[in-house]
């Protein structure tokens, strides 16, 4: 048993240089060893789901593009797939192939981004600079294809928005060759650089059983040997026709997660080459109706960070009745406390980064109810305002005078 007086609690967050978005990890330490982790989310709640109910399906397409800044195509496609299923729309083959193309380019840019972030977390800034330099190649491709570096808006309901010309095809193939060469170099670095291996091996270990129990998804799960990939298990877009293999690894640690992501980069190059060489002719989109019939659908999409799930219920109007987004980070976060058991303080940033978290995609307001059904705690607007005022008063901040003076001024 650890002497409670020796425990030091260090807050990592809500604002901290290691975090790109606000979240709070309160780390209890005994020396440099971690004994407990308290995770708090909710600093980024943006009310996306509620906002969706007030917008038309076309407007929502742009809204869901902005759930995540990195896997924007994933969320947009996942949402549109639901809408298409409810509407009974069949996407033409060329449209499906184009969606796959953008999806894989997005995976490449996301994995390069992750590599840089992970390198920075372990203080290897050289690798950060190198991988982000190479990421520019794919960012330029996306800008060339869609006009935007992120939030590409490459979908329409019923298909794709932008077609690929022959010159663009040649440019993509050339860029993919460059990227493949660079990725091979990173594989070499990852297998030879001693300090890198020392910092990643045996850090954030999670076993296959725990991965299954906690429902972990994406590269995090695949690095623990779970062969699970929505592209293969529940094919969407063109993945049924495209040959590719699901990369898994049995290291179960952060090093394994690195290898899986780098391996997936190599698979993405293969997929892109296949898609461009076998691009079917025909229209890129089907005509979509303005009003979507009543009905509901769930769609799965293998985002770079893991499986993304959207649920849409239509009511026959041009606006959805309910939309639910479950970002991959939501489930992967549950595995972080397990991964960090018995690790060092120095391992916290890299272990959190290794699930490739995206907190603002994850934050949802949930009604918390007791297990027996009663006693739900939901604040009304008036109640939460009251609570806020009381809380500040209790902590010595009182706005009553200021408010009175403001009211007088306004008069």
């Amino acid at each position, binding site marked *: 048993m650890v002497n409670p007086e020796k425990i030091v609690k*260090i807050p990592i967050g809500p604002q901290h*240089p290691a975090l790109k978005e606000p979240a709070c990890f309160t780390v209890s330490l005994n020396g440099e060893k971690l004994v407990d982790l308290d995770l708090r989310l909710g600093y980024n709640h943006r009310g996306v789901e509620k906002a969706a109910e007030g917008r038309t399906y076309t407007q929502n397409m742009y809204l869901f593009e902005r759930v995540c800044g990195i896997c924007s195509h994933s969320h947009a496609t996942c949402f549109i797939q639901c809408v298409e299923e409810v509407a009974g729309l069949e996407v033409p083959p060329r449209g499906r192939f184009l969606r796959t193309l953008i999806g894989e380019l997005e995976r490449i840019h996301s994995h390069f981004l992750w590599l840089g972030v992970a390198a920075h*977390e372990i203080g290897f800034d050289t690798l950060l600079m190198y991988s982000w330099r190479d990421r520019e190649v794919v960012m330029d491709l996306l800008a060339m294809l869609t006009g935007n570096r992120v939030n590409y808006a490459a979908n329409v309901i019923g298909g794709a928005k932008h077609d690929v010309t022959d010159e663009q095809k040649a440019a993509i193939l050339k860029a993919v060759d460059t990227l493949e060469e660079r990725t091979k170099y990173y594989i070499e670095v990852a297998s030879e*650089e001693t*300090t890198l291996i*020392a910092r990643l091996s045996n850090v954030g270990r999670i076993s296959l059983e725990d991965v299954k129990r906690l429902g972990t998804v994406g590269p995090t799960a695949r690095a623990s040997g779970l062969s699970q990939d929505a592209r293969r298990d529940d094919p969407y877009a063109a993945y049924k026709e495209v040959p590719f293999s699901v990369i898994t690894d049995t290291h179960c640690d952060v090093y394994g997660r690195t290898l899986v992501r780098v391996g997936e980069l190599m698979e993405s190059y293969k997929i892109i080459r296949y898609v461009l060489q076998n691009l079917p002719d025909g229209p890129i989109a089907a005509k979509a109706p303005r009003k979507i019939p009543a009905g509901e659908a769930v769609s799965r999409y293998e985002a770079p960070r893991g499986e993304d799930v959207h649920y849409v219920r239509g009511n026959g109007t041009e606006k959805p009745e309910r939309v639910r987004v479950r970002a991959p980070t939501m489930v992967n976060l549950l595995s972080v406390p397990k991964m960090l058991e018995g690790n060092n303080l120095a391992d916290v940033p890299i272990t959190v980064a290794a699930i490739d978290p995206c907190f603002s995609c994850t934050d949802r307001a949930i009604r918390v109810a007791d297990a027996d059904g009663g006693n739900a705690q939901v604040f009304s607007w008036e109640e939460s305002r009251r609570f806020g005022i009381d809380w500040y008063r209790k902590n010595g901040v009182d706005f009553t005078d200021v408010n009175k003076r403001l009211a007088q001024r306004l008069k």
Partner: protein
Amino acid sequence: MAASIIEMIVFPGFVFLGVLGMIFEYVDRILYARLQNRKGPPWFQPFADFIKLAAKEDIVPREADSVMFKVTPLLAATATVVASFYIPLWGPAALHSFAGDAVVVIYLLTIPTMSFFLAGWYSTSLYSTVGAVRTITQLFAYEVPLFLVILAPGILAKTWSLSEMAAFYSAHPLLCLSNVVGFVVAIVALQGKLERIPFDIPEAETEIVAGTFTEYSGRLLVLFRLAISIETVVGAALISAVFLPFGYGLGAAWGFVVFIVKIAFVMVILAVFKTSVARLRIEQMVNFCWKYVAPAAVLQLFISLILSAFVG
């Protein structure tokens, strides 16, 4: 009296070393940037940083011990400058020297590290405290090897005065080759002393914000940064005096050029080292130092002892 005050404050004292330190800070930053495929800062960046920080407000946390908080940066900067007086810079003789000044120089170069520890400890903030504890843990790992390899060449030269060591090795340049192991160990230890990657554990940004320096701002922070810049130059000068004793006796002007080239050489090695590795964990760092660096230092000691039986 007036002459020694000028010596202390202007040349080769505080001002000269400060400017030289900032020039080499620029060299380090541009090298690091170019090696990482970045453009890097313009030449005046360290000076601009200095002026900007010096113009900012000093904030002393309410919880901190305000005397210690303010004294430690001064202590760090002063100790490094004083150390430079006993190191031969461009002539074989240092400004001041006496028998055994090598020990004093290493001791003086330990004071900045101690003051980082005290600064972090008396800041009382969590991040600073963790940083301070890491600073002191790391100190024990690299300090012993550094002591051994700086003193080992002295066995051969039969003196522990840096000036006499430099004079001895410039008279017998071939004997320098026996100190190669020591040179490597000294570079690794200096990297640790200066808290640079892979040994920047006490100020690991992604874990403990700025570590020891988290609570520092304004003039106090700039003094710390100046102390680190000066320590870099003094450390490089120490290594080049002990392990690269060439170019003395060429006259003041050429001697100065050779001195700058030698420091630049050490800086290039430090920058390449910093570029090519990731930050270690504290226990990995301590293990590495005791498993590989300390035995290498002992090996250097043996080489020197055995050779001293044959030489002279």
